[in-house]
């Protein structure tokens, strides 16, 4: 079990380096001199040069990367080229918005998806077909558009919820929850339908397995066969799917935060991309990568919990 966990952690190390090196190398291709862009035109060469020196932009990419790694190990991601604020401070303020959004959407996806998928696996005919239709819609409707439509109908027409903007949890828990309802719904639509489909497939397969027939012939109740046996064994592919959607939702937050004007990491990423603000872009990448690694690890641990073969070996 410990060996299993260590192996999984070892796999996340190349992920981290791949992503951060990619970022550095790509960013090194940015055409033009960042100093000119940031300070504006009309300064003397000496001023630009001093600026480059201060930020270490003169050095080769791999040296910059080394300095950056060194800083990372000391808990520093540098300072924003524009606001001069510490990147870690800026990100730490925003990361919770994004994380609560994604966790909320994951829970909704899982609960709604598993319920829908179970329902459709166990009932044939119209329910299953309706679910198929709904899951295609979840697949097809782009979330930025879905968000706008939800705003149009639920906020502007029906006045059920506040339009946009974020209320910090510390300010008003109820307001915080309200401000997250629509973004979470928007973000979870694709996940819920995807999880539902996966649940349906996995459950249909499980219900046809020999051990389910054996349990039936042993006289167990259908409910306990479905919940205790089939669903438990179907959980692995469902969790895998949920994990993939979780990662996809991290991407999704970038768009959804724009639509609902939430002060999360996504908005910062878009702003930094517009400004060519390298330290911030790199910081965002690090944060997202860490979240992804943590989630992958959690999923792997849940495998071990769900599948005795992973846990105890043969």
């Amino acid at each position, binding site marked *: 079990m410990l060996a299993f966990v260590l192996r999984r952690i070892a*796999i996340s190390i*190349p*992920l981290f380096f791949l992503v951060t090196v*990619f970022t550095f190398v790509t*960013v090194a*291709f940015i055409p033009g001199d960042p100093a000119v862009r940031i300070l504006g035109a009309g300064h003397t060469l000496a001023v630009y040069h001093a600026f480059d020196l201060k930020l270490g932009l003169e050095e080769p990419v791999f040296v910059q990367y080394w300095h950056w790694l060194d800083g990372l190990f000391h808990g520093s991601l540098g300072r924003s080229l524009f606001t001069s604020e510490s990147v870690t401070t800026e990100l730490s303020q925003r990361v919770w918005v994004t994380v609560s959004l994604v966790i909320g959407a994951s829970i909704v996806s899982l609960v709604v998806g598993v319920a829908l998928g179970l329902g459709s696996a166990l009932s044939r005919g119209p329910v299953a077909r309706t679910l198929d239709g709904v899951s*295609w*819609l979840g*697949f*097809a*409707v*782009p*979330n*930025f*558009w879905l968000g*706008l*439509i939800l705003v149009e109908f639920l906020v*502007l027409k029906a006045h059920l919820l506040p339009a946009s903007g974020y209320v910090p949890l510390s300010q008003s828990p109820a307001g915080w929850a309200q401000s997250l309802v629509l973004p979470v719904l928007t*973000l979870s639509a*694709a996940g819920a339908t*995807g999880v539902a489909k*996966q649940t349906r*497939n996995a459950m249909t397969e499980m*219900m046809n*397995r020999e*051990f389910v*027939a*054996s349990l*039936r*012939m*042993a*006289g*167990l*109740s259908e409910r306990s066969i479905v919940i*205790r*046996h089939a669903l438990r064994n179907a959980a692995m592919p469902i969790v*895998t799917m949920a994990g*993939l*959607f979780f*990662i*996809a*939702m*991290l*991407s*999704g937050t*970038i*768009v959804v935060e*724009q*639509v609902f004007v939430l002060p999360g990491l996504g908005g910062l*990423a*878009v702003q930094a991309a*517009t400004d060519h603000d390298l330290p911030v*872009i790199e910081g*965002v*990448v690090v944060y*997202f990568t860490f979240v992804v690694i943590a989630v992958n690890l959690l999923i792997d641990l849940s495998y071990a919990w*769900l*599948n*005795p073969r992973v846990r*105890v070996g043969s």
Partner: protein
Amino acid sequence: MSSTGALIGVDTGTSEARRPDESPSRQGILHRFVRRPVAFASFVFVVGIIVVCAGARWFAPYPPLATDFSAILTGPSVQHLLGTDELGRDTLSRLLYGGQPMLLAMAEATAIAVSLGTALGILAGYKRGWADRILSGWGDLLLAMPVLVILIVVISVFPSSLYPTMLPLGVLLSAGPMRVVRSATLGVREELYIDAARVVGLSHRRVMTRHVLPRLWGPIVVQATLVSAVSLVTASGIAFLGFGINAPAPSWGSMVADAATQYQRQAWLLVPSGGIIALMVLALGLLGDGVADLVDERWIGSAVARVARRSRRVRSRSISGARRAAAPAGTPPGGDGSGLILSARDVSVGFGDGRSLVTVVDQVSFDLYQGRTLALVGESGCGKSMTARAILGVLPAGGRILDGSIRLGPTELIGASRAVLGSVRGRRIGFVGQEPHASLDPAQTIGSSLREVLRRYDRTLSRSGAKHKVLDHLARVRLEDPERVAGSFPHQLSGGMAQRVAIARALAGEPEILIADEPTTALDVTVQAEILALLRSLQMSTGVAILFITHDWGVVATLADDVVVMYAGQVVEQADAASAFDRPMHPYTEALLASDPHRAVAGQVLPTIGGAVPAPGSWPRGCRFAPRCRYASAECASEPIELVGPEQDRLSRCIHVDLLVSCT
């Protein structure tokens, strides 16, 4: 936005699991494709949109940037079919022109993802070994990346063009096609002719490109549609965020963003811009789904269709000549009829519905007596297992009991309520299957699975009481160290141990009947003997009646009191075990006995029965064994043969019994 990306490579249906078959007849596929209205309509829609967008210059009613301040935010009208925006620009025209960058970006990412994924997938599946491990790790890595974050990095370098961003997107999305192509390649690779090509001396590259690649087109097309759908959503999301497109040039994504700024004044604008993206993605998804079905159908569909067609013929015939065999002799081999526990009469089991109905068990009758063992004998596919499962009312998906009666004492089991069946299963009739591991829940310890059934059978049983009883039951099937077994998962047990566990579970409810469906077939010979001895001694101590399904005459000799021989869904002979061995009264029984390895004579070739059991749905009209029978004459094939009793306590479905008996 790219949350749909998670679908790729994971939920693409069964296409990856199956092996592509021999020669794809392209014409037949096109034909079947046209007959799938949803997939075909999707295909027409996708191609149509691509054509009108590519030819926007000719199809669009207005130039994309032409403003008309007399018609601002009009909504749909005759002049402007899809309305106008805040500058009076025609939405339809902008939609057509705006499709160009979106579809080009989509094509770029798809081309990269599919070609890269296919190449690496074939490499991994074909080379296997370390190449496979490295590439699988690479695929896992790609799937774990937050796509849009990576793209944002590229966008920050190339903010004004969509196309550079599509390169990393294509690479990230290649993980899905790679996985699917890899597993499909593994399947193709196993086939002999690839080996043959290698032996002939073709280079690896040649084998991969000439022989493997052409067989993978189905899964690749499915993946291509999914990747296109995801890249389209992603590209439009990037445009929505304000990157990659230089205003005022239109694009679907930026039109949604523009509409968002106007929806207080004209909400309609949201409809065409977002709608076209959704419709396009939907069409691509449905197209992929349709192709996946089509690819599957090619592998299994034709066979199903054939069986269905045949069964239709057979069915109509059997209805027209509805001559039900007379009820089997009421004098069962048990003698006086006392101790009768279960009595099955004319049980028929079928799969499918209406016109596609296929009968697999045809009017089978037998009786079970206390303390006796009835062996149900026959080759694979003759309906033994379905008969056994019909007793408990647990048939595989699609199967159902068509007719007949199964009485357990006064209780009729066919058509019984869920509650009645629940009280019979496990408590009055236990079941042991062929594959001991497959019959146990892989995620449950042995102790937990036995506790579960014990507490189900006896609701007053306490937790600790159940724990003790579990150990008793495990000891009863002579498992050493029951404590350790109780704490084990099925995969930690050997086949013999797992089968003992399965027997313990089947007997946990102290049933009157034990159905054993080839319980020793999957086991080693020595273990087989142990399991048979165990069953025998358990029968002695409990008096349980055993219905033993087997094709092994050695097992029949060891265990059975009575024998029912089945062929092609029917009972062909019934006798007590000794008589069946001495004087078989059906040519099939005789042939089975002759080909039994236990009776092989040293130095002589073991006789076999030529031909194979006809598949359900293609049973001959007359005697079903006639095509393989050495006594067969013309009359055998003309009419269905009745099950008759040539002697006391014997039944045979043969008109040449006399000839047969005189020959032996």
